[in-house]
C-alpha cells in the first residue's frame, strides 16, 4: 500500500475510534470520510488483494450482507460494513478497521454501485431487487436499472448473482452483448427469492410493453425478456442449490424474505468456492442486524424491532410480524425521504384484528391512511406510552429509518 494510503488508513481508524468514544455514532462513516480526504484512492488501495463481494438493491442489503459475510467466513476472515454504512466512506472505514483480510463483503447503496465497482474491482456482485424508495430524492426505478446495466457493461469480468424474480434486476443484469465493442455479457447466476411487490415492474424496461405474470413466471408481451431459470431457489424451509440438493435453513431471523436472503448469501458464497453444506450452520448464528429483528425485554413485554423503509419492505414486515400488538412509527426526516405519499402504496389490511398503535413525527399521515384502510388504531405520544398500552407478551415494532433509530436509542442502541 502506498505511504499516503497507509497514513490515510491509520488516520481513518483513529477518527472512527474517537467518534465511537465520544458517543457520536458508531464511527462507520466519519473515519472513511477523513481517510478519503487524505487519499481519494484509499478505497481502491484498501480493496487490493482482497476477494470482494458487493451486495446491492433496494431492500434486504444489510441482512444479506451479514448472512453472506457469515457464509464466506467458512474460508477465512471477512471484512464487512455491518452497520449499514453503505456508501464509499462506509466501505473505506470498514476495510481500514478490519486490517488485512482475504475476503470482504460490502453492502452498497444502489446509487453508488457503479462507483464502488470501479474502486473495489470485486469478484462478485449480488443484485437483490429494485423498487420505489424515497422518490423525492432517489432515482426512478427504471433509471436505476439503466445505471446498473451501464456499470456492468464496463465490468465484464465480474460475476453477477441476480434475482430472477425481479424484471428490473434481470434486465439490468443482462446488457446486450456487442463483440465488436468488446462487450461480453456478464456471467450471471440466478436466484429466486420471491417478490411480493410487483408495482414497479408492470412495464418492460426494454420495450415498454406490459409484463405478464403467472405463478412464479413472468414474461414481456412485446420482447424476449422473461424470467430466467434460477439455479438457486427457496423451497419450503430450505434452499435448493444448482446441483438439485436441498439444504434445510434454520435462521434466527423471521419471515420468508430472510430465507430468500439466505439463498442469496449461499449463492454469493458459492462463487468463492464455499459449499452450501458448510455454510448453512453459520447462517443460523446471525441473530439481529444493526438492531433489525432485535428482541428486547422490558416491563414484561418482549419487544421485537422490524425496519420497513418503503412499500415493498412494509409488505415483508407484515409477513414477518406475529399476530400480536403492533406499534407503527413513521418519520419523514432527510434519511427517510420527506414525502409520506408511499403510505398509500401499502395495504395495511393484514393488521386488522391486531391491536395497532401509532407514533412518530408523521403519525397523523399514518392515521389518515389507516382510517381509509379500515384499520382501528390508537395514537401514542412516546415509545414508553406504547409499551404501557399493550398487555405483557410480544410487542412488534415496525418503523421506518429514523423512527427505528429513535426507538433503538430508547432501547440503549440495541444491535
Amino acid at each position, binding site marked *: 500500500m502506498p505511504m499516503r494510503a497507509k497514513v490515510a488508513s491509520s488516520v481513518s481508524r483513529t477518527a472512527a475510534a474517537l467518534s465511537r468514544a465520544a458517543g457520536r455514532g458508531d464511527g462507520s462513516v466519519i473515519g472513511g470520510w477523513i481517510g478519503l480526504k487524505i487519499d481519494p484512492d484509499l478505497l481502491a488501495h484498501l480493496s487490493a488483494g482482497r476477494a470482494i463481494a458487493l451486495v446491492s438493491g433496494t431492500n434486504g442489503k444489510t441482512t444479506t450482507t451479514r448472512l453472506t459475510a457469515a457464509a464466506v467466513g467458512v474460508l477465512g476472515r471477512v471484512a464487512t460494513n455491518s452497520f449499514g454504512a453503505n456508501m464509499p466512506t462506509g466501505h473505506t472505514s470498514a476495510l481500514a478497521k478490519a486490517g488485512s483480510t482475504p475476503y470482504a463483503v460490502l453492502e452498497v447503496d444502489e446509487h453508488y454501485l457503479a462507483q464502488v465497482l470501479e474502486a473495489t474491482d470485486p469478484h462478485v456482485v449480488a443484485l437483490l431487487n429494485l423498487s420505489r424508495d424515497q422518490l423525492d430524492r432517489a432515482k426512478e426505478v427504471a433509471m436505476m436499472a439503466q445505471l446498473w446495466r451501464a456499470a456492468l457493461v464496463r465490468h465484464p469480468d465480474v460475476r453477477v448473482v441476480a434475482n430472477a424474480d425481479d424484471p428490473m434486476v434481470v434486465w439490468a443484469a443482462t446488457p446486450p452483448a456487442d463483440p465488436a465493442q468488446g462487450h461480453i455479457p456478464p456471467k450471471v447466476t440466478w436466484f429466486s427469492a420471491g417478490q411480493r411487490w410487483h408495482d414497479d415492474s*408492470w412495464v418492460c424496461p426494454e420495450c415498454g410493453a406490459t409484463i405478464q405474470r403467472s405463478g412464479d413466471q413472468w414474461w414481456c408481451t412485446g420482447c424476449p425478456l422473461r424470467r430466467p431459470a434460477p439455479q438457486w431457489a427457496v423451497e419450503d424451509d430450505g434452499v435448493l442449490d444448482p446441483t438439485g440438493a436441498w439444504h434445510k435453513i434454520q435462521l434466527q431471523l423471521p419471515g420468508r424474505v430472510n430465507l430468500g436472503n439466505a439463498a442469496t448469501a449461499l449463492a454469493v458464497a458459492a462463487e468463492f468456492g464455499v459449499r452450501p453444506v458448510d455454510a448453512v450452520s453459520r447462517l443460523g448464528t446471525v441473530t439481529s442486524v444493526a438492531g433489525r429483528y432485535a428482541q428486547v425485554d422490558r416491563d414484561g413485554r418482549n419487544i421485537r424491532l422490524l425496519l420497513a423503509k418503503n412499500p415493498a419492505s412494509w409488505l415483508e414486515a407484515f409477513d414477518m410480524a406475529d399476530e400480536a400488538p403492533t406499534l407503527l412509527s413513521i418519520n419523514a426526516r432527510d434519511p427517510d425521504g420527506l*414525502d409520506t405519499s408511499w403510505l398509500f402504496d401499502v395495504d395495511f389490511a393484514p393488521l386488522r384484528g391486531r391491536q395497532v398503535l401509532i407514533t412518530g413525527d408523521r403519525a397523523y399521515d399514518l392515521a389518515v391512511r389507516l382510517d381509509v384502510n379500515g384499520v382501528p388504531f390508537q395514537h401514542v405520544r412516546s415509545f414508553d406510552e406504547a409499551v404501557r398500552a399493550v398487555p405483557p407478551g410480544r410487542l412488534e415494532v415496525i418503523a421506518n429509518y429514523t423512527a427505528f433509530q429513535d426507538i433503538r436509542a430508547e432501547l440503549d442502541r440495541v444491535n
Partner: protein
Amino acid sequence: MSTESLRIVWIYPDLLSTYGDRGNALILARRAQLRGMPVEVLEVRSDQRLPATADIYLIGGGEDGPQALGAQRLIADGGLHRAVAQGSVVFGVCAGYQLLGTSFFAKGAKYAGLELLDIASDRGPSRAVGELAGEVDARLGIPYLTGFENHGGRTHLGPGVSPVARVTAGIGNDGATEGAWRGKLLGTYSHGPALARNPALADLLLRWATGAHQLPALDDTWAERLRSERRAAVAAARA
C-alpha cells in the same frame, strides 16, 4: 350519476402511479361509502379500452416515459374525451395534470396533450420538491390546499381555465398559481394521494359527480390534525 353506483375509473395504474396515487381512488370510494353510496372502482390498464361512462376519472403521476406513452394511448383511445363531453369528472395529478393540457415536455421533447384543459407545460429551471400550499379559488368553496410536490415542469394557464389556488408555499404551476380547473375538470401538482390532505377537495369531486349540493359531514379529525400540522410545518420553515 350515470348508473346505480358511483363509478370511479383509475386510469393506467401500470403507467401513472408513481407514489401513492392509489390513495385518491381509495379515499373517494371510502367517503362515498360512508355516505351510503354504492361505489365501483375500476382500474384500467394501458392495454385496455377506457370505459366512457364512469362518473369520476383519476389520472396519477408518472415518469417521463410513461407520461408520454399514457398521453398517446389516451388520445388514441378517445374514451376520456367522450366521458368529458358527457359531463364526467376528471381529476389529474402531476404528470396526469400536465397531459390534460395542450402540450408537455418529457424526455427533452414536446408532446401533444389531450387538450381538455387550456394549459401548456414546459421545463422549469429546477425541480420543485417539497411542501406545497395555497389559498383556493373562492368559487370552489373549499379551504386551503396542502400537499407535497415533486416535478420538473412549469405550467402556463390560458384564458380557458382558472388556477385552483394562489401559492403560499412551494412552486405549483409557476410559483404564483397552482393547478387549473374548468367545469368538472381539475388538475393539481399536489402529487400522490392529494385527497388525503384535502378531504374537502374529495367531497367537491363527489358533489360534481353526484350533483348533490351538500354531502353529510364525516369525522375528519385525523385529516384536520394532519392539515394543521402541515400548515404549521410550512409556517415554521418560512420563519
